[in-house]
């Protein structure tokens, strides 16, 4: 049985199922041979009877039984007989029978081998054997040998046609095609009326079809058309259609496919539907769809053959084929062709919808909408199509369904686009389409789904009122649990968003915030507004309607928020506790914790927060995101301790605050707040005057958290506290650490300043000056920069670092040109340094600069010190002339020289006096006194000059000399009197100006010599300056 099927399949090679009919016939033919042979084998006695055309009607099963018992015996008997009686007239019959026995034997063996092969092959597939079994061999050589003897030696044998047929068949089976064809050709030529011919033609046609020799195949297939009663007739038509189809000759192919359909219609009636007919129709459609002729070609073909009832079916299939193969252009042309030639066909909308569905909206949105419009127009109420098909209930119903589907599809498409791109325009289009649908089909089965989507669109359009209304309807009427849950949840979120829209200040906050007064303090417990109440009810209804709702935690969270924002903390806490208790693994549980802590924070109940958070952590909730959540909760927890400490600090509970900070760092060393906690503890200790505690805290922070952002500030505070502890060594160490390692930070400037102060306290003026310079350089304040320069300069002076001092003053002058007082002070300071360095010329330049700057200002400074500097500079400049004046002495007795010296000196005396008097007018007490003294000194010097003039040589007697001295004295006395006068003026001016200085003392000293009777040498007292060292009085009590 299997073999036969195999033979059939192998030889005919048809894959199409619809060739079964011809296969069955072919099978029947093969079976007949076997039956015949078996009848011979079954009863030798009946061999004679076999000469007649007696037919055996037994079953295959019987053949197998007979074969098993008699096959070998029969073959041997026939072979013996032929050998024994070669000339017997029964030899041809014997050969004939023997050929069949051999054929059968081989056929049976093939069956068995094939079955065994199958079994082994299955074992191989199951992995029970390692190698593929050998394929069964086909060896008909014995049958072929015997048949050739028969055909060649007995040309007139009565069953020659059968023999030739069997010979051809076995050759084909054996793969000896040429000999097989020769045997078949002999049969065709010798027996033109043989009933085997239609089969032989079919076999030859198949052979050439398989060999791709389509012309020969068509020839042999066409020969079968002469035998319309042949069981191969239908198959051959089919094969011919196929052959032309392969040759892309679609008109000829279609003719044969139509013939095939017509043959079946004729044979079984037009209502008969078979896969062959369907296939024929499909291939016609495919053929035209694939050919350039297209739908028009198909239409013309049918016109040419007079039309067929199923032509619309084929033409519509062409449209569908185009649509399904993305040939949109051809699809649209074809559907237009259909509309043109079959405008009222009830099925056209269905085809059109298929094409519409094949249009990709993202590529051809406009086209899609155009086609949808066309369709809706075609099918709408009152259209001609409707009118024509009004009695076709099915067509009308289908049309309605199509319109609904298209409306919904279009709306859904725009909804999706809106969601993808968050495009408001798309949402609006979607909303309009849903609205139209709902208006037109209020009772349709799709209404709830459409309303759900409509609600979602409205939500996205922020029309929360509309969304609430639609979600409510869906939630109320749906019987689908999933939709009920979704709409219920959406209802809650819609309410949530409506509240945000209605109370933006209250609800649009990053974190949930309760009602606070203008000072940020918590207001009293409030109550829910009407809408908030309804929102809370929606939350409650969600819980009731969806007892197993997957989003209960989220809904509860929303409900809690309503209470939270209205300061109804007890109610909110109740809900949050429920979330945390029932849904510890949900994200909202963590958020609930945060909100719980937030509420406690508003209530300043930090102990509660910490205790509660710790408890929560210990419960091991939130397992999936345990790391993140634990971190977050720990952060909240330690943050609350931090805040608690901070609040204590702000409330003035300093010791408690410090302890709390220290506890935080100790108990939660890994907390993100621990470093700041230690730092803040340090600050509090400082505030409390406990610098040793502060040092401990800062040191601990620096050791434990070296990467803390508070590192530099902690270092600075550490240094400050060491300084407070009077541990200046460590203070300077840490200040220097900052100035060297963290010189870019804001602390470097202050660190330099403090280090400078300490250095100065230790009389390390040079170091102090360096630090002040660095402080000034880092300072952003111009005044500080300037003052640091002058301070540094004065300290350099103290340290004897005169060049550095000169540089510092010079920098001040260059950088602070607008500061007249400062610049003048710097010049005078530079001049004084040059005086120390005995560089008079440089000093003179500086004095000159002082005077120039002072004069150039146009408005003399009100600063008394600057006035003093100006007077000092002028005084010093005059001193040069004074020195020259004092150096003029007469050392010879030459009268001419005497006269010249006298005149020059007197001239200079006058000049000096004038210049000193000008200085007095400058308004500087000190230099006024000094100038008066100097005038006196100059007069005294003139008197001395006169006394010191050598006695002229001409005066050679004592009398003359005495006379000369007397005259000199007379000349000198007025100068001495003037000197006394100015010394006295100097002392008087000193008393008047309340300025006692060295010049006063010098003047007094001069007077004691010039007028000893009036001015005695006096001793100098030691006035007592005494520091105030006393026990402090703390004032009255109860202030």
């Amino acid at each position: 049985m299997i073999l036969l099927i195999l033979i059939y399949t192998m030889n005919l090679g048809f894959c199409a199922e619809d060739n079964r009919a011809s296969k069955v016939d072919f099978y029947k033919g093969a079976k007949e041979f076997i039956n015949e042979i078996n009848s011979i084998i079954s009863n030798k006695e009946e061999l004679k009877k076999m000469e007649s055309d007696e037919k055996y009607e037994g079953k295959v099963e019987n053949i197998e039984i007979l074969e098993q018992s008699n096959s070998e015996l029969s073959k041997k008997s026939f072979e013996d007989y032929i050998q024994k009686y070669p000339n017997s007239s029964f030899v041809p019959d014997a050969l004939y029978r023997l050929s069949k026995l051999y054929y059968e034997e081989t056929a049976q063996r093939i069956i068995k081998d094939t079955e065994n092969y199958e079994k082994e092959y299955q074992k191989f597939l199951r992995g029970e054997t390692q190698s593929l079994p050998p394929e069964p061999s086909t060896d008909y050589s014995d049958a072929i040998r015997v048949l050739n003897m028969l055909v060649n030696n007995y040309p007139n044998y009565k069953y020659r046609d059968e023999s030739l047929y069997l010979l051809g068949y076995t050759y084909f089976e054996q793969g000896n095609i040429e000999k097989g064809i020769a045997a078949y050709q002999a049969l065709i030529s010798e027996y033109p009326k043989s009933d085997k011919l239609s089969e032989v033609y079919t076999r030859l046609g198949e052979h050439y079809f398989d060999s791709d020799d389509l012309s020969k195949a068509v020839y042999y297939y066409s020969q079968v058309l002469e035998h319309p009663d042949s069981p191969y007739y239908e198959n051959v038509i089919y094969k011919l259609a196929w052959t032309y189809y392969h040759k892309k000759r679609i008109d000829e192919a279609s003719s044969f496919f139509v013939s095939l359909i017509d043959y079946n219609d004729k044979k079984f009636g037009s209502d008969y539907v078979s896969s062959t007919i369907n296939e024929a129709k499909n291939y016609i459609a495919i053929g035209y769809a694939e050919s350039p002729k297209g739908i028009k070609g198909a239409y013309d073909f049918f016109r040419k053959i007079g039309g067929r009832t199923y032509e619309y079916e084929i033409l519509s299939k062409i449209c569908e084929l185009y649509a399904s193969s993305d040939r949109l252009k051809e699809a649209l042309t074809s559907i237009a062709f259909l509309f043109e030639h079959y405008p009222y066909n009830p099925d056209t909308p269905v085809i059109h919808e298929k094409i519409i569905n094949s249009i990709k909206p993202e590529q051809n949105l406009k086209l899609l909408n155009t086609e949808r419009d066309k369709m809706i127009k075609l099918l709408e109420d009152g259209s001609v199509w409707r009118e024509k098909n009004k009695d076709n209930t099915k067509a009308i119903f289908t049309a309605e369904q199509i319109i609904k589907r298209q409306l919904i599809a279009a709306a859904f498409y725009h909804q999706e686009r809106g969601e993808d791109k968050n495009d408001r325009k798309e949402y609006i289009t979607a909303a309009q389409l849903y609205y139209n649908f709902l208006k037109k089909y209020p009772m349709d089965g799709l209404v709830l789904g459409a309303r759900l989507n409509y609600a979602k669109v409205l939500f996205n359009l922020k029309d929360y009122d509309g969304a609430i209304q639609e979600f409510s309807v869906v939630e109320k009427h749906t019987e689908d649990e999933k939709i009920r849950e979704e709409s219920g949840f959406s209802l809650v979120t819609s309410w949530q968003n409506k509240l945000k829209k209605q109370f933006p200040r209250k609800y649009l906050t990053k974190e949930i915030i309760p009602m606070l007064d203008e000072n940020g303090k918590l207001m009293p417990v409030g109550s829910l507004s009407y809408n908030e109440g309804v929102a809370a009810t929606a939350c409650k209804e969600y819980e009731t309607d969806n007892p197993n709702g997957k989003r209960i935690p989220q809904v509860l969270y929303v409900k809690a928020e309503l209470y939270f924002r209205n300061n109804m903390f007890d109610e909110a806490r109740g809900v949050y506790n429920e979330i945390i208790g029932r849904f510890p693994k949900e994200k909202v549980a963590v958020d609930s914790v945060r909100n719980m802590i937030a509420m406690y924070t508003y209530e300043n109940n930090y102990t509660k927060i910490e205790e509660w958070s710790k408890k929560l952590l210990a419960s091991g909730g939130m397992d999936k995101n345990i790391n993140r959540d634990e971190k977050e909760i720990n952060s909240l927890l330690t943050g609350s301790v931090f805040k608690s400490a901070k609040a204590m600090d702000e409330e003035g509970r300093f010791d408690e605050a410090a302890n709390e900070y220290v506890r935080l760092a100790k108990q939660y060393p890994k907390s993100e707040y621990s470093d700041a906690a230690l730092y803040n503890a340090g600050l509090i200790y400082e505030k409390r005057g406990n610098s040793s505690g502060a040092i401990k805290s800062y040191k601990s922070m620096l050791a434990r958290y070296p990467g803390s952002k508070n590192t530099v500030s902690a270092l600075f505070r550490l240094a400050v506290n060491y300084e407070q502890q009077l541990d200046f060594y460590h203070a300077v160490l840490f200040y220097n650490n900052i100035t060297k390692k963290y010189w870019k930070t804001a602390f470097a400037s202050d660190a330099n300043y403090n280090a400078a102060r300490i250095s100065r306290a230790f009389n390390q003026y040079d170091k102090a000056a360096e630090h002040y310079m660095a402080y000034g350089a880092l300072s952003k304040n111009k005044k500080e920069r300037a003052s640091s320069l002058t301070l540094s300069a004065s300290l350099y002076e103290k340290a004897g670092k005169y060049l550095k001092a000169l540089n510092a003053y010079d920098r001040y002058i260059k950088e602070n040109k607008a500061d007249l007082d400062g610049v003048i002070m710097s010049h005078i300071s530079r001049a004084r340094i040059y005086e120390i360095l005995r560089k008079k010329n440089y000093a003179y330049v500086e004095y000159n600069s002082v005077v120039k700057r002072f004069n150039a200002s146009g408005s003399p400074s009100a600063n008394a010190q600057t006035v003093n500097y100006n007077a000092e500079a002028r005084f010093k400049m005059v001193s040069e002339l004074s020195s020259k004046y004092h150096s003029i002495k007469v050392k010879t007795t030459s009268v001419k020289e005497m006269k010249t010296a006298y005149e020059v000196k007197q001239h200079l005396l006058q000049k000096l006096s004038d210049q000193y008097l000008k200085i007095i007018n400058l308004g500087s007490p000190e230099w006024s006194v000094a100038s008066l003294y100097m005038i006196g000194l100059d007069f005294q010097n003139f008197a001395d000059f006169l006394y010191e003039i050598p006695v002229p040589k001409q005066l050679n007697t004592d009398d003359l000399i005495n006379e000369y001295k007397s005259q000199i004295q007379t000349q000198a006395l007025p100068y001495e009197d003037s000197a006394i006068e100015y010394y006295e003026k100097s002392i008087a001016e000193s008393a008047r100006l309340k300025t006692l200085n060295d010049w006063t003392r010098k003047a007094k000293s001069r007077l004691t010599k010039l007028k000893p009777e009036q001015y005695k040498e006096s001793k100098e007292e030691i006035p007592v300056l005494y520091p105030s060292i006393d026990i402090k009085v703390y004032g009255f009590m109860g202030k």
Partner: protein
Amino acid sequence: MKKIYILIIITSLFACSKGVEVVKTQAPQPKVARDIYSVALEHAVAFEKSGFTDQKEYSNAISGFQEVILKDKSNADAWFNIGSLFFCKQDMQRSEEAIKKAIMYRSNFVEAYSLLTKLYLVQGNIQYAMSVAEMANETLPDSDILMNSLAVLYIKSGNLDSAKKMAENIIKKNTKFAPAYVTLGNIYYLNHNYEMARFIYQKAIEQDYVGGDIYTNIGIITSKLDEKGSSLGYFMSAVENSPNNPDVRNNLGEYYLSVGDYEGSLKEFNMALKFNPRMVQALVNTAIAYTRVKLFDEAEQNYKKAMSYDPSFAELYFNYAVFLSDHRGDNTQALSFFNKFILLKGKEISDKHRVYRYIEEINRAKK
């Protein structure tokens, strides 16, 4: 004998303190008593602001606090304030009595202990002051105020090391206690470590210390380290902050004296003497100022007064010697006083000090 007296004081203080517990159990004070107290306090503050000159405010304050005590004799604050008022008026005996009462009714009244110590110090009784301070520190250890008072007494008694240790201990314990910085600054000053002294004084100011004493001390240091002229600002600030502090007045007067403003200096010295008539420094400076304006008798009176108050004050002898030599021609006495000065100063002065030149001049003149 002194020891016995000190013991009596201490014993009486402890005996007083026993009564405190009994008083504490009494009923709360009637509201009216507090109102009288507030009014009295306002008068006391007004008296303080007047530079302790407004007699009317003083009387009202005294009578107010006395009225409070009549209603509640255990009101330690009222007793303390009365003691403070008497102290300001230099009525030391009554001040002492009142302060002791305050301590009796409040055994841990550190301000009262401190004031009592100061009272003894002002009276020149440093031993009593020291005994009270030590006893108070023992009774109330760790009190910044009492520790600082003791440190000041160490300074006064010349024990600068102990004073320094004590002041540093206070600061290390409580960096906010500004008076300890003042004390430490004073110690550095007396050790001639002027830069450090100024640095430490500055720290007291950073801790919001209010008091002219610190400015006057910085003024002295500035005068010594920088320029005389720039010290004036500090002296003025000192007077502004503590107009009633005799040291502050004296130092400003000295500044005026040094620049030849004798009138101004005399005014300040007189103010100093008003607040502390026994202030030897101010008396000596007054004498110098009188000498400059040639009021020699007045000058001599002040020298003598100073000598009676503190015969161990070295500068007195030097200046008096100058006066006697230059203006009284009493070189013999002058020589004696110059030598006394050398004796008292000891190693504090060098061989180049002008006192030796003056002695030589006198001796030369004698010959």
